[in-house]
């Protein structure tokens, strides 16, 4: 991708990358060079760079293999349930290529080891689970695990689970015991789900908001939030990109700092790290990527 790689505005900034890489281990991966150079070209003020460095230092950054290993933690809970009467359902919509489906696939490796589970207990969408739940069988399904790879504000999960119960009610299906599983999530989103749905949520990685929940001083929080909003505004004006409005501070104001290398970035993450304007002649090298 050399043709699209950015030129650093100054030699000092180019070598600054080396300093950042020494300070923040995950930035050592070459795939982040172009995005980091772009951020330094876009944000030149000292206070902007201080905030950038603070946020980058707080990113919960994982490799795909680390996250697959953490599925074994979730499977430990699942193995306590009856394989014959349990469904593990991803939250994806039917037509979507979605993170929940992608990560659900890796459950197979761990479930297969117990020799009691089979493929039919995994359903890629909520819609596909209705057929299985309404099937007449010897023992009806008693437990449903609803799985998503990441919980942001929790609103989407609440909507989907409510829809799930509505659909069961419409089909006259006796509601099973539902639990929510995720690989990672925002603490406030997880609490929102627990409050709204009163269901058990299992999530091995729980994250605090990137600015609001990192400091005790309210003035400092307010100052940093305003600074971040001004940084978003400068990008919005430069790239004429509306996403900065709908996802200001991350979707649902989640202020997420979470990324699994080489995977689609969550829209709950601060948008300066992933928003890439679309259209002819418009291009931005981003730190993380999102379709």
């Amino acid at each position: 991708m050399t043709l699209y790689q950015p030129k650093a505005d100054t030699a000092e900034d180019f070598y600054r990358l080396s300093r950042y890489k020494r300070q923040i281990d995950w930035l050592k991966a070459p795939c982040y060079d172009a995005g980091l150079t772009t951020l330094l070209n876009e944000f030149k003020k000292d206070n902007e760079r201080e905030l950038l460095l603070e946020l980058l230092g707080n990113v919960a950054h994982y490799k795909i293999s680390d996250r697959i290993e953490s599925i074994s933690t979730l499977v430990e809970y699942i193995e306590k349930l009856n394989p014959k009467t349990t469904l593990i359902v991803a939250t994806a919509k039917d037509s979507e290529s979605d993170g929940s489906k992608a990560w659900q696939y890796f459950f197979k490796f761990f479930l297969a080891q117990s020799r009691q589970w089979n493929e039919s207990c995994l359903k890629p969408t909520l819609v596909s689970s209705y057929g299985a739940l309404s099937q007449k069988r010897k023992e009806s399904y008693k437990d449903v695990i609803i799985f998503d790879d990441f919980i942001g504000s929790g609103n989407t999960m609440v909507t989907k689970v409510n829809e799930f119960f509505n659909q069961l009610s419409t089909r006259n299906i006796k509601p099973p015991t539902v639990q929510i599983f995720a690989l990672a999530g925002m603490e406030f989103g997880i609490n929102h789900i627990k409050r709204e749905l009163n269901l058990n949520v299992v999530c091995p990685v729980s994250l605090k908001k990137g600015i609001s929940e990192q400091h005790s001083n309210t003035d400092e929080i307010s100052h940093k939030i305003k600074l971040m909003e001004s940084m978003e505004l400068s990008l919005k004006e430069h790239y004429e990109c509306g996403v900065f409005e709908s996802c200001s501070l991350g979707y649902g104001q989640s202020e997420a700092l979470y990324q699994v290398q080489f995977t689609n970035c969550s829209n709950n993450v601060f948008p300066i790290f992933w928003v890439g304007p679309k259209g002819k002649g418009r291009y931005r090298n981003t730190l993380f990527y999102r379709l």
Partner: protein
Amino acid sequence: MNNSLISSVISLVKDGQLHELYELNQTYRFSYSQAKDTVKSLSKIGVLYSEYEKFSLNKSLSKKQISELYALIRYRTLRLEEDKIEQFENDAIKVNCLYVPNISRLDSALLIDVNKK
């Protein structure tokens, strides 16, 4: 290691002067890691001398070093970026088409200061 990157580094150092990693970014759009890793690899086989961000061509290369360098770059191809180059060509305006030039994009060395008497 990408042989296009190696070839670009050789193009830069063939003048025998001392160069900086930053020049690779400005001239060939290398990322920091690409610049550092390519210079490090060429220094390892003795083709370059390098210290921190600076590097230059070893002026007394042995036959073995030249042979190693040749082996690294002989199959260089731009195939992977052909589609992007083609896109640039397609987007370009026709040779005789009238247009308002964007002077800010021109290299300052090409500009004549019209206010200068």
